[in-house]
């Protein structure tokens, strides 16, 4: 069992090593087989573990060696597989495998060594992500956390010959670092306070924190989550990260890495439950992000940018769920979102592939005829994300919204507005891409074709999951106790649940109200979809946006704002230090010391007259003086005292 556990991260790591070290000698098919094969093997093992956990219900914790051992303080290198992490394992390896398979076709145009490099990065990413979710303490999680950050950087900057991509990679890296700092501080704080970073110990002793400490720690952790999961204000990297290859966007920026923040908060749910202010902040920021990103997505024309902002928006929903205590809903949304967002990204990738890297939806249209499989699966994905029953998005989003309503009805209304916007921009995207007439060049039209099976099969699999994935979490409204996921995850959130049970003062939504709300929302969504369909399916001409539209198209000018309030001043300060401080103070001091030493040594050198005899003379005389001093200390000291 121990080795089985170890194999899960080890296999991708081996894949990384093989692909990375022998990338010049491996053929493309070989690389693809190795890269995908190790993930498939990891998936199979994860499946085994999943059923084991499901059967026993108890977490598996295995400690391999002491990662850090200082005196009594020990950080073991330990893995923990419980309900939460086994679920994440399945998502990561399962979707990761599909994306690997997809990549073999999508990246086929690359030269073999770059192809292998790509797969090495992907494997390393999967390895880091697995480390992140399997670690039994915050330190191991942090290792994985940094690892995925690194891989994200590497993969965004995969086409490193394009400078813009490199800037995007750098941006993602720096943004992540800001969040990581918070995470790191939180870990230090926990270790300083409790002397351990192991989950079980930390959560068991959560009562020993004062409320202030707890708030501070959870906030710091949340800062980390904000960075990784692209929440306001650290979200700008995610849309830019679309510079990487599309499967990377699907894997990292939709399905796995961005959910690390969700995972972390879900993992430490008890701390958030107990710290009330933090939960509210999380909920508010999540909601704000959801709405904010949705508004931006309304006016984006880049197919991947739309999806990226949609991702940000969905992540905001998940944080809303976490903030209002609907942990299961958040995790549920992570899962369903992984299905349909991966589907959508891969579909978009398929389109981009077919369009020869054309990403502007204004130049698309009417692809329905040319790419039937992509079209169908993409439509299913859109329905799922829009929250049309009975697709998976409906159930997960509904659960979060119900949770939000329980916390505060205002959250619910704003959330519904976001959901409506989601439905709108998704179908705007869908309509502009697949419906109407083709608006691209003739050459592009000539080459339009359905993608190979390595691309379509993952699409189909993901479409099936998107459609039926929601049935894992049928709300109590439909059938009492049919929420399989909630039952499965119950042990993880048990502590929070009991705490809420005793502390909640609010009211529970009656089933009737829920029915009404659900119906109303569904109706509104359908209306919005119809509107979007009508408005965009025949659109031929695009006018320059004006007013709010322009603001939205330019993403609320957030990048410019950051540039003005953070980057410019920093540059100014840096320039000042470089030009003035460095030159006059630092250089002055350094050169002054050098000049002083040069001068003094020139003076001292005069003593070195090269006559051995004189050296020895000085030596002997000094010896006499030293002996005298040692001998006549008292006499000399009294004499000196008399003089001074």
């Amino acid at each position, binding site marked *: 069992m121990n080795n089985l556990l170890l194999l899960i991260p080890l296999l991708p790591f081996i894949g990384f090593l093989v692909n990375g070290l022998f990338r010049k000698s491996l053929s493309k098919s070989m690389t693809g087989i190795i890269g995908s094969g190790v993930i498939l093997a990891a998936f199979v093992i994860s499946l085994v573990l999943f059923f084991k956990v499901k059967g026993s219900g108890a977490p598996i914790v295995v400690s391999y060696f002491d990662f850090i051992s200082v005196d009594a303080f020990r950080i073991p290198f330990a893995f923990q597989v419980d309900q939460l992490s086994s679920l994440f394992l399945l998502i990561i390896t399962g979707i990761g495998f599909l994306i690997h398979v997809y990549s073999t076709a999508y990246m086929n145009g690359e030269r073999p060594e770059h192809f292998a490099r790509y797969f090495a990065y992907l494997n390393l990413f999967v390895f880091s992500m697995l480390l992140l979710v399997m670690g039994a303490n915050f330190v191991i999680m942090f290792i994985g956390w940094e690892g995925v950050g690194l891989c994200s950087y590497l993969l965004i900057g995969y086409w490193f010959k394009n400078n813009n991509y490199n800037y995007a990679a750098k941006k993602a890296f720096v943004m992540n670092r800001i969040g990581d700092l918070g995470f790191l501080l939180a870990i230090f704080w926990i270790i300083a306070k409790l002397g351990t970073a192991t989950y079980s110990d930390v959560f068991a002793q959560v009562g020993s924190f004062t409320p202030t400490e707890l708030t501070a720690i959870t906030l710091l952790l949340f800062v980390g989550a904000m960075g990784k999961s692209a929440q306001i204000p650290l979200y700008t990297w995610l849309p830019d990260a679309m510079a990487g290859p599309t499967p990377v966007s699907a894997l990292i920026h939709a399905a796995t890495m961005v959910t690390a923040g969700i995972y972390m908060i879900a993992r430490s749910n008890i701390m958030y439950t107990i710290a009330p202010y933090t939960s509210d902040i999380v909920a508010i920021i999540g909601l704000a992000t959801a709405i904010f990103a949705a508004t931006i997505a309304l006016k984006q024309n880049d197919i991947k940018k739309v999806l990226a902002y949609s991702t940000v928006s969905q992540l905001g929903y998940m944080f809303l769920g976490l903030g209002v205590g609907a942990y299961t809903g958040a995790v549920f949304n992570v899962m369903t979102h992984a299905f349909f967002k991966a589907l959508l990204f891969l579909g978009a990738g398929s389109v981009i592939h077919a369009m020869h890297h054309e990403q502007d939806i204004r130049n698309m249209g009417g692809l329905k005829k040319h790419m039937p499989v992509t079209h169908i699966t993409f439509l299913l994905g859109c329905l799922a994300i829009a929250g049309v029953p009975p697709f998976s998005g409906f159930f997960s989003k509904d659960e979060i919204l119900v949770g939000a309503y329980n916390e505060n009805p205002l959250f619910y209304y704003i959330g519904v507005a976001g959901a409506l916007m989601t439905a709108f921009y998704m179908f705007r995207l869908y309509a502009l891409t697949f419906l109407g007439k083709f608006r691209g060049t003739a050459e592009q039209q000539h080459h339009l074709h359905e993608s190979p099976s390595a691309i379509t099969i993952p699409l189909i699999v993901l479409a099936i999951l998107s459609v039926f994935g929601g049935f894992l979490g049928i709300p109590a409204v439909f059938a009492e106790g049919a929420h399989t996921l909630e039952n499965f995850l119950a042990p993880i959130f048990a502590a929070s649940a009991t705490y809420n049970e005793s502390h909640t003062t609010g009211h529970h939504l009656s089933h009737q109200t829920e029915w009404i709300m659900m119906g109303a929302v569904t109706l509104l969504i359908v209306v919005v979809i119809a509107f979007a369909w009508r408005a965009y399916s025949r659109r031929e001409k695009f006018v320059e946006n004006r007013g709010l539209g322009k603001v939205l198209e330019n993403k609320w000018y957030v990048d410019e704002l950051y540039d003005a309030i953070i980057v410019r001043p920093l540059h100014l300060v840096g320039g000042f230090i470089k030009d003035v401080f460095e030159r006059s103070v630092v250089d002055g001091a350094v050169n002054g010391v050098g000049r002083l030493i040069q001068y003094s040594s020139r003076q001292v050198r005069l003593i*070195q*007259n*090269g*006559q*051995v*005899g004189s050296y*020895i*003379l000085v030596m*002997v005389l000094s010896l006499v003086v030293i002996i005298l001093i040692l001998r006549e200390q008292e006499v000399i000291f009294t004499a000196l005292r008399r003089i001074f």
Partner: protein
Amino acid sequence: MPIHYYVILSATLFCIGIIGVLTRRNAIIVFMCIELMLNAVNLLLVAFSKMHHGSLLQGANSGIDGQIFVFFIMVVAAAEVSVGLAIIVMMYRNVHSVDINFLNRLKN
């Protein structure tokens, strides 16, 4: 013999060596004076060794370290002389003199 006699004899020999090093300019004689100093030290070590042997007498080998030390000093002196004389010969070949005042080529 009182140990002071030996100590003073050694000190005197040592100082004669030092004066030689200071006043003579022939590198070989300077070298010889260094040997003289080494020998003064050797004599002192042997005297002390016997002093310990006489005053303590706790072990049959007490004070033997001093003589061993003299032995090592001789070894080092032999090695030093071989190299040093080689250097002097080298210098003589280059400068045609063994005056140490010509040994200031490193100056400046």
